[in-house]
């Protein structure tokens, strides 16, 4: 069984702070399990896109170390020509608008990149199980609700990345 782990921006922000203990803990857990986290392009852009964020301790995230060491990888581009990917992302956009009681205009299609990527790796057979690590509850719920409706029941799991989750994470989490 192949499980793909998809990580959102919030995971790395959660790792921040001066001591970086949580970052080291996550790194150790992934390396011991021999697993890497995939991040959508969108997340990569968010992590590196704001020099102002450097002023914050939690904005100073040593994620480039993860690329060098191979336990964070940027995922393939989303294939919008894949009808499942495109459909699920449109549905997720509506789902998030509804969940947050906002007009659809405030969400962008790329906001649903996590959900789209999950659908893509399942549809291409690259993974038979996907774990979504995120602090974006509306997107996590969208993935858990929508992807099973397209024939992938019990194949997607949303884990909310709390402080406690990262403080106690071990390789076991990725096996």
């Amino acid at each position, binding site marked *: 069984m192949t499980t793909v782990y998809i990580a959102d*921006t*919030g995971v790395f*922000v*959660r790792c*921040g702070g*001066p001591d970086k203990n949580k970052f080291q803990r996550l790194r150790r857990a992934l390396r011991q399990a021999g697993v890497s986290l995939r991040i959508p392009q969108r997340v990569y852009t*968010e*992590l590196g*896109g*704001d020099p*102002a*964020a450097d*002023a*914050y*301790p*939690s*904005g100073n995230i040593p994620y480039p170390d993860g690329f060098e060491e191979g336990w964070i990888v940027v995922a393939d581009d989303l294939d919008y020509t894949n009808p499942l990917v495109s459909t699920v992302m449109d549905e997720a956009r509506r789902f*998030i608008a509804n*969940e*947050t*009681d*906002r007009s659809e205009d*405030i*969400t*962008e299609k790329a*906001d649903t990149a996590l959900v789209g990527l999950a659908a893509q790796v399942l549809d291409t057979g690259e993974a038979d199980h996907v774990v979504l690590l995120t*602090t*974006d*509850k*509306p*997107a996590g*719920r969208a993935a858990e609700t929508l992807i099973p409706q397209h024939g992938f029941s019990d194949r997607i799991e949303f884990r909310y990345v709390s402080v406690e989750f990262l403080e106690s994470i071990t390789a076991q989490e990725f096996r």
Partner: protein
Amino acid sequence: MAQSPPRSGRPPIQQLQTVADLLETPALARVYAHILHDGPVTVSEIVDTLDIPQGTAYDYVQNLETASLVEKTREQRPYEYDAEPIALTLSTDGKTQTITPALIAAVARREEDEDIDVYIERHGLDGLAIALEYAYEYVDGTVNHRIAARELDLSPLEAEIILQALEPVATEYVGAAA
């Protein structure tokens, strides 16, 4: 204009001075937040829990008592104190903001959480009060950092940083949110 429900007979403008001190003095805010959360407590319990000098703790408790933000609940030594929840609504130029216990608790954290400190430096206390409203939604799962970023005109990264920093406060005060 300042409005506050009458509390223990202390008129709003007099309370306002102490509330301004609370917003400017994180250690004072910590004392208030602690009494509100754990009260009734004695001053020595405050000293032990918050690790602040005894003289400072006595001064702070007295200031808060004078402003009627805390009151003695035990008249014999050791005195015990409990806090009144603040709700001070300020309106200027059509903009309204309410100073709540949660906002005081967020300010109280700026010494230990530099993310909150940097956010206040960049966006002011009004910015913090608005971010706190988003933090309730974030905890509730009815907003994410991406939507918050667009509505608050921040980068998604900065939005996620402040929402995570305020998450403990929002979680603690969620029932008390107006």
